[in-house]
């Protein structure tokens, strides 16, 4: 276990050192968040009764989404890993007495966390300075906040499980680009990245919420704002757990099969 921890630490440090990228991302995210809230505000002022979420819950959703962006954005691939599979360099990762899946999973988790740690505090701070109901506010009980944290952890597993599944798929395809584009687009729409899922038409919303993409940012961000509450919390988190398990198991099997095949094909 210690080796995976050290590996985690290493990648975390690597993620932490992109200062300029974080600064640039930071301003983008703040401006973007503010713009989104202004647009939603216009709709909300027009017909507050037809709004599927409370304005406060929505504002918290948007700010947290911006703060956590690098944590769950599916498109934060490591091209390096995909390239290493395409060129066969991945073979040289196998001279380490480690499991490749574990190594890459650790690496993905750490890098996302490292990048997020830089951006999280300032966006959270700025967001909470914005006046209610347009700012970031904690409106739920500490117990629910605890569930939010837990759900955010599950989200990480689902996201990295999905990313690992796509990396593993690379072993079986010549060019994984197409799959990546489709997955990214699906995650944007069905994951609540473009608009929160309550704003989708009922049928699509049901599909989105049951899909693995709906087990990502959708759950923790809405738990935080109180939009998913009561008995819906364990149900949503159960679904997260289910998708995390399916994606991780699927990716692991796919990678194993891929490695065997790569070995046959000559790395």
């Amino acid at each position: 276990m210690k080796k995976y921890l050290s590996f985690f630490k290493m990648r975390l440090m690597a993620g932490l050192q992109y200062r300029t990228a974080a600064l640039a991302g930071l301003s983008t995210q703040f401006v973007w968040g503010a713009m989104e809230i202004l647009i939603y505000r216009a709709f909300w002022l027009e017909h507050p009764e037809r709004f599927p979420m409370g304005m406060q819950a929505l504002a918290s959703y948007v700010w947290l989404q911006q703060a956590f962006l690098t944590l769950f954005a599916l498109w934060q691939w490591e091209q390096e890993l995909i390239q290493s599979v395409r060129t066969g360099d991945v073979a040289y990762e196998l001279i380490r007495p480690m499991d490749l899946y574990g190594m890459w999973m650790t690496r993905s988790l750490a890098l996302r966390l490292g990048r997020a740690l830089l951006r999280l505090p300032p966006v959270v701070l700025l967001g909470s300075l914005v006046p209610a109901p347009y700012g970031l506010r904690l409106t739920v009980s500490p117990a629910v906040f605890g569930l939010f944290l837990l759900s955010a952890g599950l989200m990480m597993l689902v996201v990295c499980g999905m990313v690992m599944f796509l990396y593993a798929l690379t072993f079986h395809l010549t060019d994984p680009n197409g799959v990546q584009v489709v997955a990214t687009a699906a995650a944007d729409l069905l994951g609540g990245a473009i608009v929160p899922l309550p704003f989708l038409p009922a049928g699509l919303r049901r599909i989105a919420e049951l899909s693995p993409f709906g087990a990502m940012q959708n759950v923790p961000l809405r738990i935080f704002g109180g939009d998913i509450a009561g008995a819906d919390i364990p149900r949503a988190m159960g679904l997260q757990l289910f998708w995390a398990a399916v994606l991780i198991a699927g990716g692991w099997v796919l990678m194993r099969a891929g490695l065997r095949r790569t070995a046959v094909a000559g790395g």
Partner: protein
Amino acid sequence: MIEMRGVNKTYRVRRREAGLGSAVKSLISRQYDLIPALREMSFTIPDGQIVGYIGPNGAGKSTTVKILSGILRPDSGVCTVNGLVPWEDRKKHVARLGVVFGQRSQLWWDVPVADSMALLRDIYRVPQAQYRRTLDRLTALLDLGDLLRTPARMLSLGQRMRCEIAAALLHSPQVLFLDEPTIGLDAVSKLKVRQFILEQNRLCGTTVVLTTHDMQDVDALCSRVLLIGKGRLLLDGSTAQIRAMAGENLSTEESVADLYRRFGL
């Protein structure tokens, strides 16, 4: 001890003619060529030997190294390294193996070399005291000093190669595979690296398999040479024997070139 007996490995390569017409045709029916990379490869390397594994490009050198590293599974034949079948006991096997690929880096690019070393220590579970001792010894022998505190991307090729070799030896492997370790190095760095390999072999009894195109490496280091071509073992002997075969007072380099021609490689 490293043993290979009757090892065969064939790659399946997809081939087609250039052009749109054949590109479309290959959508429907694909043609594969079978490329034999190793044919009935057999040799034994006892513990503590430094062996030069040489041959022209495409001879099957890296295929052999990959099989011995447990990365690649041969089609048939027997292969054991210190009693383990590399691809079946991969993790256990690579824990006792050090590998340096001259053309790529195992150091993490953006962090100081010492951080990479510490990570390798944890990956290979080297006890702290032993790690300290080994690193001190390697630092003295390879003249690492300040290099350890420098990010890998800031190192010159020669400096990096010395760090790479140190990184491959941190866990005191019994077997060391060196794949063109002196490629692109200046004269001083080359000499340093060679001297160190000899030292390591003498002091620790490390078995070294060296693949290279640099015959001076072979002259300086190898008591024994395995010459392969087209996937077959063509010659197994000392550099003196190779020179004797070519005759006429040629250097090892010229003798090897002569042998390549003679074997029609």
